[in-house]
């Protein structure tokens, strides 16, 4: 029980520290501006106004969410190690796994709140454009949920890399895996197309080993009014949950053995 308390304490203060960072404010303001710009862009195109608002709005949420995830994910874990604030935490009766889990939950909560703010901005823009919001306009919510799942995975990546490397390298690694994660299906296909059994095997292994983030990309489809099936929402949620569990477990195992000089 005390363990749970400490995790929540760490999560809460992580959130508190994060939301006071000016960088975060600026990012949110910028994201809201981008969403606002969607209205401008859509006014100079004919016939696809709503599509542009949805496309650009959701893309802004996704891109800025990613920047925030990498930024604060690293700022709040890797820096804690580099600036040795970790000494203060670990000299308290805090187990190391509590630190990792607490940090993770705090970061995800921060991203959740930020995404919620951007979502409100998005719906205001959408309402301004269409002058009505019906049941059909709930579809983007599922897409935003998928963006959040993606961010949850990215944050766990950032924490994992924080445990094994420096802040800058963590940023680089996290971003690389993010990009590769989006190209995995292409890579898999290229692998299948080759005649080398070796390449086939390697791409297949990578396909299952790395986070397959393109499975969470539904922005353009949403813009064209496609619905996401309930089954896919379920299995993508499960996938994100499993992937985060794996990464956090690995992070804990590494963190347990880590020395803080």
């Amino acid at each position, binding site marked *: 029980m005390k363990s749970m308390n400490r995790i929540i304490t760490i999560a809460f203060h992580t959130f508190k520290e994060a939301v006071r960072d000016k960088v975060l404010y600026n990012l949110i303001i910028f994201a809201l501006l981008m969403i606002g710009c969607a209205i401008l862009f859509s006014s100079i195109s004919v016939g696809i106004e709503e599509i542009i608002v949805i496309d650009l709005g959701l893309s802004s949420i996704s891109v800025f969410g990613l920047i925030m995830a990498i930024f604060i994910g690293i700022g709040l874990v890797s820096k804690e190690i580099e600036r040795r604030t970790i000494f203060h935490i670990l000299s308290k009766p805090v187990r*190391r796994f509590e630190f990792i889990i607490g940090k993770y939950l705090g970061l995800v909560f921060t991203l959740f709140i930020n995404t919620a703010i951007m979502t409100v901005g998005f719906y205001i823009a959408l309402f301004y454009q269409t002058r009505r919001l019906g049941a059909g306009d709930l579809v983007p919510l599922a897409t935003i949920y998928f963006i959040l799942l993606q961010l949850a995975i990215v944050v766990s990546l950032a924490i994992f890399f924080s445990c094994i490397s420096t802040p800058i390298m963590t940023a680089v690694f996290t971003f690389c895996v993010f990009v590769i994660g989006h190209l995995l299906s292409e890579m898999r296909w290229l692998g299948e197309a080759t005649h080398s059994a070796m390449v086939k095997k390697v791409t297949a292994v990578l396909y*299952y080993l790395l986070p397959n983030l393109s499975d969470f990309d539904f922005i353009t489809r949403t813009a064209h009014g496609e619905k996401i099936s309930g089954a896919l929402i379920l299995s993508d949620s499960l996938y994100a949950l499993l992937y985060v569990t794996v990464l956090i477990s690995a992070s804990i*195992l590494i963190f347990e053995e880590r020395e803080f000089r």
Partner: protein
Amino acid sequence: MSYSTLSMAPGFTARRICWSLLILGFVFLFAVQRQIDDEMGVYAKISDVLYIPAGTNLRRLSLGNEGLLADIYWTRVVQYFGRSHMENAGGRFDLLAPLLRITTDLDPQLIIAYRFGGVFLMEPPPIGAGQPEAALQLIRRGIVANPDYWRLWEDLGFVYYWDLKDYKTAAKIFKVGSERPGADFWMKSLAGTVAAKGGDIQTSRLLWSEIYRHADTDAIRRTAEVHLTLLDALEQMKKLDSLLALYRSKEGHQAQSFYDLYASGFLRGLPRDPTGVPYVIGPNGQAQLGQGSNLKILLAQ
């Protein structure tokens, strides 16, 4: 020696829990990924590539990675083409032209895309999209971007020759192509032959075998092979027709089947097409492909 704070609490081997979660997590991830692959298949069919309609925009958005992006799109072309072939036998390839257009916008030097498009946009279903105009447009764009690559002229002329049967234009294009640096010598004679004779089996055979020899992809090579086989069949049928005419003049009546020709010694066996299906005699009294011959679909064009 372990320093872990995890190993502390008695009976609570959190380290073991972490390892279990790690391994089990990956096992389940594997299963869930396969599930997702199935579900995503539904979405993949309605290809998302079209949501950015102009490749030039995409080129800007790619921030300097358009080559890579073009490669990705090219794989999508092939993927789309292959999948459509497998999934719907009576397939249409509505997305083929726009996909190729995006690909070549991203990378105008991607010759393979023009050549592939030339053949498969031109070819009627079920082999291709049956959009010769789109094929012409694509190849013309290819020629603008790659003026020195003479084979695109060959491809362009071929569309006029084969699909549109516009032999005059085809001959002109072959002539221009033959003047490009490095063009093979036969291009020149080809121009003359096509101008003089229009379409004949010899010319067609030459063109298809050129395509066959220089095919960049298996799909093109296979298609050319099928066409060459069909040309063989056409030649055989021509010969059979002359045999039928000979029979008629010698015996004074139409042959009812090729068995008549065999019985009378005109043939040493029953004639079969290159795919092994026996020829039959059609209602007009001429040789025809037999029931069930794969070549029949092609001939219907």
